[in-house]
C-alpha cells in the first residue's frame, strides 16, 4: 500500500460498485419471481375458465386466448378441444401443477389442471417470460446511472479522504520543517485521536534523541575542557621547568610526550566533532579561503621544519560544514608536513572542473608505496606499524578522519604520487556548489 488515499479510493469505489451490482441482481431476481407468479396466476385463471366451459358442455373456440397461449382439453386419451397453435399430441407428461417445456423454439410455462369433472385434464401453457426483456431493460436502467455516478463518488471520496488525512499532512509538514536539532515535544491537543499514539511515540523518541544529543554535545565540551586544561597546565609547568634546567633531557622528552598527547587529543576531539556533525550549519564554503585560513594557522609549525608552503588556484565553492572542512585541510597539511623532511615543499591547489571542485595537497616527502594506498585511509593504520621508518609518531587518526569528512560531504578521495614534487598527492573531489545560490 503505497498511498492511503489511493487505497481508500479504490476500495471504497469497489465496494460501492459491488453493493450496487448485488442490489441490482437481487432486484432482477425478485422482478423475475414476481413476473413468474403473475404468469402462474394467469394460467390458473385460464385453466379455471376452460374447466368451467367444459363442465357446461360448451364448445370451446380455439381462439379464446391470444397467440401467446395454447391449451388442450383431454378426456382420458381423447382430445376434446385445443387451441390452433397447440399440437395434436399430448403436450404434457408430468403430474399436475406447473412445469417448463420447450416447444416450437420457445420456453413455455405449462399448467396441468385436473378439472372439476372427472377424467378431464386441462393443459394451459403460455410463452414463458415474455416480459423478461422488459425486466432486463429495467435492470440496465438501474445499473447504468451508477456507472455515470461512479466518477462523482470517486471525486467526493477523494475530497473526503483529503480532508480526513489533513491532520496527518499537517503532522508531516511540522516534522519536515523542524531543524535537525529540534527535539521539542509535539503538542497533543492539535491532533486527532488516531494520531495520538504516533505523537506519543514520536515524543518519546524526541526525548531520548534530545537527551542523547545533549549528552553528546556536553561530552564534546566537557571532554575538550577536561583534556585541554590539564594539558595546558602540563605544558606551562614543563615550560617553567625547562627554564630552570635548560639541558635536561628528561624535560625535553616530557615536552615531546605532551605534544604527542596534545595531537592525539585534538584528533580524538576532531573525530568526535565530525561524528556528531548532524546539526546543519551547512553552507557554501570557498575552498580557497578555507585553505588560506588553515595555512595561516598552521604556518608556525611549518617554519619549525623550514618547510615552504604555497597555495595555488582560484576561488571555488562547495557545500559543507566549515569546521569539518577546516579539520580536513588541517589534517592533510599536518600530515604532509609530518612526512616531509626539513626544507621540503608542500603545495595546496584548489580548482574546479566541470561539476567538481578539487583540492590537491602534494608534498616533496617520500610518499607512500602504491600497495599501501587503500590501507592508508583506514583508521588507526600507520605505515610500517607504530614506529615507521620516517621516525614520526602520530595517532594515525588523521587520514581516517579525513576519509570520514570526505564521505559526509559526498566527496571522493584519491591517493597517488605527486608528479611535480615526488611525494604523496592527496586529491579530493567535492560536488561543486552552484555559484548563483545563497
Amino acid at each position, binding site marked *: 500500500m503505497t498511498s492511503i488515499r489511493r487505497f481508500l479510493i479504490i476500495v471504497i469505489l469497489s465496494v460501492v460498485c459491488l453493493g450496487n451490482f448485488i442490489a441490482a441482481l437481487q432486484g432482477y431476481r425478485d422482478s423475475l419471481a414476481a413476473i413468474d407468479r403473475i404468469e402462474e396466476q394467469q394460467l390458473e385463471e385460464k385453466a379455471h375458465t376452460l374447466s368451467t366451459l367444459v363442465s357446461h358442455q360448451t364448445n370451446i373456440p380455439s381462439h379464446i386466448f391470444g397467440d401467446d397461449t395454447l391449451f388442450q382439453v383431454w378426456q382420458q386419451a381423447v382430445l376434446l378441444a385445443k387451441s390452433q397453435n397447440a399440437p395434436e399430441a399430448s403436450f404434457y407428461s408430468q403430474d399436475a401443477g406447473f412445469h417448463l417445456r420447450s416447444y416450437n423454439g420457445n420456453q413455455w410455462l405449462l399448467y396441468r389442471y385436473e378439472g372439476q369433472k372427472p377424467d378431464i385434464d386441462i393443459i394451459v401453457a403460455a410463452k414463458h417470460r415474455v416480459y423478461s426483456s422488459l425486466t432486463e431493460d429495467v435492470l440496465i436502467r438501474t445499473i447504468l446511472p451508477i456507472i455515470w455516478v461512479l466518477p462523482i463518488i470517486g471525486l467526493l471520496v477523494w475530497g473526503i479522504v483529503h480532508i480526513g488525512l489533513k491532520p496527518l499532512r499537517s503532522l508531516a509538514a511540522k516534522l519536515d520543517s523542524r531543524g535537525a536539532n529540534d527535539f521539542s515535544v509535539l503538542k497533543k491537543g492539535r491532533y486527532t485521536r488516531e494520531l495520538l499514539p504516533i505523537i506519543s511515540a514520536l515524543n518519546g523518541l524526541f526525548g531520548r534523541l534530545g537527551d542523547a544529543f545533549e549528552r553528546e554535545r556536553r561530552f564534546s*565540551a566537557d571532554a*575538550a*575542557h577536561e*583534556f*585541554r*586544561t*590539564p*594539558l*595546558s*597546565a*602540563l*605544558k*606551562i*609547568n614543563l*615550560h*617553567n621547568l625547562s*627554564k630552570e634546567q635548560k639541558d635536561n633531557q628528561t624535560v625535553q622528552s616530557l615536552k615531546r610526550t605532551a605534544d604527542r598527547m*596534545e595531537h592525539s587529543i585534538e584528533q580524538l576531539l576532531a573525530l568526535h566533532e565530525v561524528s556528531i556533525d548532524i546539526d546543519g550549519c551547512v553552507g557554501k564554503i570557498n575552498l580557497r579561503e578555507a585553505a*588560506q585560513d588553515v*595555512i*595561516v594557522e598552521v*604556518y*608556525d609549525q611549518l*617554519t619549525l621544519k623550514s618547510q615552504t*608552503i*604555497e*597555495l*595555488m*588556484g582560484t576561488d571555488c565553492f562547495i557545500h559543507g560544514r*566549515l*569546521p569539518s572542512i577546516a579539520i580536513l585541510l588541517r589534517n592533510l597539511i599536518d600530515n604532509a608536513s609530518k612526512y616531509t623532511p626539513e626544507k621540503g615543499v608542500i603545495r*595546496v591547489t584548489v580548482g574546479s572542473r566541470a561539476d567538481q571542485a578539487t583540492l590537491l595537497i602534494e608534498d616533496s616527502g617520500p610518499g607512500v608505496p602504491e600497495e599501501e594506498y587503500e590501507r592508508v585511509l583506514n583508521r588507526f593504520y600507520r605505515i610500517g606499524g607504530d614506529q615507521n621508518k620516517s621516525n614520526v609518531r602520530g595517532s594515525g587518526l588523521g587520514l581516517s578522519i579525513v576519509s570520514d569528512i570526505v564521505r559526509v560531504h559526498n566527496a571522493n578521495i584519491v591517493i597517488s604520487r605527486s608528479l611535480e614534487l615526488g611525494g604523496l598527492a592527496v586529491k579530493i573531489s567535492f560536488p561543486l556548489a552552484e555559484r548563483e545560490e545563497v
Partner: protein
Amino acid sequence: MKILIVEDDPDLAEGLITALKHESFIVSHAVLGDEAKTRITQFQPEIIILDLGLPDMDGLEVLRYVRKKNTDIAVLILTARGDLDNKVKALDHGADDYLAKPFEMMELLARLRAMSRRLNTSASSQLKIGAVVLDIVAHTLSVNDQEIRLPKKEYMTLKILMEEAGRVKTKAMLEEHLYEWGETIGSNAIEFHISNLRKKLPPDFIQTIRGIGYTIKKADASQ
C-alpha cells in the same frame, strides 16, 4: 605591568603565575568570577587573562563587568572550547585577544607583549627584528641604525607584520587592519605598500607565501 589571572584550574594557574613572574610581570590570581571583580578594584591590573569556564559564572560576565567599569584594561580570553563561535562571541564582548587551550607559553608571551605595547606601557616601545627596529611610539623605522621615513600606511603594514612575526598575514587581514584604522584602501594597495617597504628593508625581510600572504620571520628563527 600588572596582570590578573582568572583561572580555576590550580595547576594551570600556578604554572602561569610562575612563568609570568619569570618574565617580570606583577601577577595576581583569582579563582572565582566574584573574586575577580573585587581583585580588579584592589589590584588595578592592566591586563586580565580570563578563563571562560569559571565555577561560579561565565567568564564573559567578568568581561562585561570589566568593560562597564574600565575600558583601558586589556583582556585576553583563554578557553578550552576552540571553536569559532566562542572566539567571535568573546571578541564581540570586547576581549582584546583570544587564545585556545592548550597553548604554547611562547605564544601567550608574544600576545601579552603585543598587548602591553598597545597599552603604551611597555618598557620597550621598540619592535626589533635583526637589523630592523620599528619604534611604535615615535613611529620611526631604522635599518642598520639608519632612520628611514615611512608613509602612514606602510608604517601600519610593517607594524602588523612585525608585531606578529612568524605568522602569516593574508592580504585580506592586512586590508582589514588598515580599514579599522580608518584608512581607505584601493585594490592592489597592499601589494603596492609591500613593494615600497621592500625597497627600504633588507632583502627577503618580508617574505611572500604564495597564494596566502606575507610574513616576517621571528628574530630567533632567522638566525
